[in-house]
Structure formats: C-alpha cells, structure tokens
C-alpha cells in the first residue's frame, strides 16, 4: 500500500469534459448490469410478445376483420406501447439506487452532480433498443411486413428511441419522488395506462365517444403511433414526425429539470 496522502492539493472544480466522462463510466455500469438482471430482461422482451399475441389474436378480428390486416396497423402501436412501458424501468432502477445508498456513494465522490442520472438514462437506451428489436422481430414471425423504405423504417426506430429518452425523464421524476421501487412501478403504471391506451395506438379513433376523441387527439402517444405507422407501413409522415419530436422535446424540457431538481433535494 502506498502512502495515504495524495501529494497535490485538491482541484477546485471538475473540468468541462469531466462530467461527460463520469456519465460514460456510469453508462458502462448500467450496461454491465443488463445481462445480469434477468427479471428486467424477461419483462423487457416478454411484454411486447405478450401484447402482440393478445391484441393480434383477441382483438384483431373484431377491429380489422382479419388478424393479418390488424397486425399491419397494430404493430407500430405495440412498438410505442412497449417502449413507453420500458421507460418505467428507468424510474425503478433510479429509485433502487437511491434507496440502497449507491447514489450516496456517488455523491460523496468528486464527480458531476448530474452524471449518475445521465449515466443511468444513457444506459437505458440499450434497453429500449432491445424492446424495439424484440417487438419488430416477433412481429415479423407473426407476419408483419415493413412496406415503407428501409430508411423510413430506420427513422421510425430512431424516433421511438428519441421519444423514449424524453419519456424516461418523466419516469426518472417518479423514481426520485417515490419511497420504494414497488411504489414507482405501481404509481407509474397508474399514470402510464391512460396515456398509452387513451390513444389510437390499438383502436381507430372514429369508434370512440367525442369526449374521449378530444383527449386522444392531443395525446402525444397518438401522434407517435401515427408517425410510426407512416414510417413503417407508408403514408405522409412529415407533420406527424414533427409533432412527435416537438412533444418529445416538450416532455424533456419539463421533466428533465424537474427530475434533476427533485433528485438534488432528495439526495
């Protein structure tokens, strides 16, 4: 063991790149844990499969007259649903880090205050990619076909990722406010369900009563689902993509500062 005394006086502040480097280290930490967290991997990959099977074969005939035709309109919606639900994991994991004291250790280190949050969220991007890949892959098995250009489909996946990275700040906010990971899950789903299903993600909007249509028409999940349909199956996408991106930006601008502020207060 070398001497306990560092020779140099402590630095006054972290360099501009220091915070980014801290965030990458903590992203690496999140990535290391993905293959070891089997429960999360299961729910991440089984949730879309379950929804695809249930909705395609239970509702498909009633809604579209044929399960195959329904799959073409429904799968983009299931993509949105899976990714939005996957953002709940962000809040739960953040909450676990706070309640187990891991974040206390981080905060006692000379690192950027925002690095643990940013690292956790960047690490989650890979979880969303897994969710998108499983949904698309299983959709192909069931007979879904991309009928738009490959570039357009790639843009569809990218849009999903961007939206998820904005939405996970909302999840992060719940994560830093609740007392336990279980509370995050319970409360999170309670809020997410009406937002996810109160949209035209699974059912055409024309079948809904007027008051519900009013809500569905302003729900960002509706824009995102329509944008995904256009990008994967075909149709005019530009204004839908634009609105989805504006919503993503809005969600980020509101919830990211709130989450950071609550995180600072909590820890």
């Amino acid at each position: 063991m070398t001497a306990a005394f560092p020779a140099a006086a402590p630095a006054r502040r972290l360099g501009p790149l220091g915070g980014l480097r801290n965030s990458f280290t903590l992203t690496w930490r999140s990535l290391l844990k993905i293959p070891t967290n089997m429960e999360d991997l299961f729910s991440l990959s089984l949730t879309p499969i379950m929804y695809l099977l249930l909705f395609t074969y239970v509702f498909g005939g009633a809604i579209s007259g044929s399960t195959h035709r329904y799959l073409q309109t429904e799968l983009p919606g299931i993509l949105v649903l899976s990714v939005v639900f996957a953002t709940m994991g962000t809040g739960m994991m953040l909450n676990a880090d706070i309640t187990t004291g891991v974040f206390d250790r981080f905060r006692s280190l000379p690192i950027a205050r925002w690095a643990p949050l940013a690292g956790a969220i960047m690490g989650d991007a890979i979880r969303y990619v897994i969710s998108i890949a499983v949904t698309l892959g299983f959709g192909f098995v069931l007979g879904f076909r991309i009928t738009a250009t490959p570039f357009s489909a790639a843009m569809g996946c990218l849009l999903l990722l961007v939206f998820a990275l904005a939405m996970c700040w909302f999840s992060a906010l719940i994560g830093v406010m609740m007392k336990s990971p279980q509370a995050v899950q319970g409360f999170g789903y309670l809020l997410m369900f009406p937002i996810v299903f109160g949209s035209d993600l699974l059912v055409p909007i024309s079948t809904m009563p007027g008051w519900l249509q009013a809500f569905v028409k302003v729900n960002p999940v509706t824009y995102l689902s329509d944008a995904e349909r256009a990008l994967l199956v075909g149709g005019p996408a530009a204004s839908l993509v634009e609105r989805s991106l504006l919503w993503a930006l809005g969600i980020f601008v509101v919830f990211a500062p709130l989450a950071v502020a609550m995180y600072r207060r909590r820890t």
Partner: protein
Amino acid sequence: MNAENATYAIEARGLAKRFGKTTALAGVDLTARAGTVLGLLGPNGAGKTTAVRILATLLRPDSGAASVCGYDTQRDAHQVRQLIGLTGQYASVDEGLSGTNNLIMIGRLLGLGRRAARARAAELLARFELADAAGRRAKTYSGGMRRRLDLAASLVGRPRVLYLDEPTTGLDPHSRNEVWAMIREMVSDGTTVLLTSQYLEEADQLAHDIAVIDRGVVIATGTPDELKAQAGQQVLSVTPARRDDVAAVAALLAARLDAAPEVSAESGTVSAAVESGRRLPEIVRELDAAGLELAEFALRKASLDEVFLALTGQPASAASADAQKTPELNGSPR
C-alpha cells in the same frame, strides 16, 4: 485557510439540522486531529448519521459550518469530496456488479485511467482478502465480505479523511476484528478516521478521542479514559436481601452521594457512581442503623457502558435494541 496548515482534519461548529418536526442536530461541535480516530458515540437516532452526512457533503446543515482539512463542506464541496472516503450503512456498493467492477467504476469516476483503475481494484481486493470473490457479483457476498468491499471502495481514492458509519454493526466477532485491524492499519498510514458506533467497546479499542452525542447535542467529549473518570471512577452496588427494601436503599444512597443511583428492577440492585471508597464505612453504618439487611455490597470500576448510561440516561444496549429508523436514515428530507 488551506489543507496544509489546518489544525484539525475535521472541524464542525454549531451544526444544526431539522427534518420537519424532528431535530436531528441541535448545535454540534466536533474536532478530529489529523491522523487520529474520533469516535462518535450515541444511541440510535442521536444524530450520528446526520452529522456524518453533513461532513460528507451529502446534506447541508440548517446552520453552523463544517470543514475537512480546512475546506468548507458547503462552499468547497468538490475539494472535500476529493479528500474523503465514506463507508457504512448508507454509502453502499452496487450489488449488481462484481467486486472488481465496483472498484474499477469508482477508480474511473475518480479520474484513474483504465489500467490504473484495474490495478488499484486488484490491489485493494487482495488487501481485503476478496481476491477469490473478485469476479462474483456483490449480491452473493456475505455480510462481512460486503463490508470489506465497502471499505475497499471508500479507499480507492486514498482518502485523507475516512468516515466509518457503524462499520461493524451486524458483523460476527471475527469479521469485526478484521475490520478493526484494517482501521488501525489505515490510521498508521496517516488517515484521519471518524467512526460512529453504538458499541462502546469499539470506541474504547480504536478511538483517540470520543464525543458522546444524544438527542442532537454533544453531551461529553474526551479520551476514553477521561470519559470513564468523568462519570465516576468506581461504582457502588448494593443489593438488599428483601425486595421491599430497594426503595429505602436507593433513597439512602441518593442522600449520601452526589450521583443519583440506578435501580435494576430484575436483580433489585441499586448502583451509584462514587468518587472514592472513603464514604463507604459511613454508608454501611447508616444502612445497618436503618435495619436494611444486605445480600451484596460491592465496589468496582465503571465500565464504558455505565459511562454511557450516566451520560445519556439510557443504556447503550437498550438504545440499540429499539432500533427504529430515524428520518435521516431514509435520506429523504421531505
């Protein structure tokens, strides 16, 4: 003031902190000389953890100030974080990562390069006898192994000041002795240690100075020997032959001695601190004159437990037995 000519490695003045209606600290002064161990003793909920969290820059005090090696914990938090290591019940290791990756992560966060972080991790794992379990996830570690990994994690940055918050709570005697040996080794390397504990024996073994804290205030400070002297060098215990006489014996001792006697309901023993043995013949004569028949009459040295009892009004063991979670343990000052 700067790190090199600060007198104390840890210095706190008038720290106060409230959580809602709970007063965790009500004006605490603490000092630790460089290269020594300061033991912070007190029952659960006394405010020990709140004090450590303030000194570790995790909490802001409502009033008062603290410094580490001359750096203010609020104004110069970034510098303080480069000087300290934190371990204990709260600053936990990541259970989902292996021992090696836990330490590499901290090394990288402290600015070490890949190879340096890996080398430092291997060095610490070997030193804390965790080399065999280095690749296993911390979730699979025993309590003692986890505590050692936690200790190793706090040493990655070679801290000058180390906070150990109840480092041996819940450990078996063997693991506890290992942790003690490691603390002594760090102190001999020149590290300053702030140790909180509910165990008087631990403070007696390790601490150069002790501060006893209760209900958010420091109620006594000194070396372990000074504290023992402060609460009375010796203890007189008197057990009457008949249970009915316990109150009468207690009243008689209370009248003759400065310290209020303690009555043990189970054994019917009345004990009180005495300055010396000079008053004993007088007390014996008075007990005899009052017709109080005795089963036991003994004079012995005070234990640190009795010091604790005399200072806090409750025995250390009973205080730790009703281990309810205090607000600061949940870390949420809402």
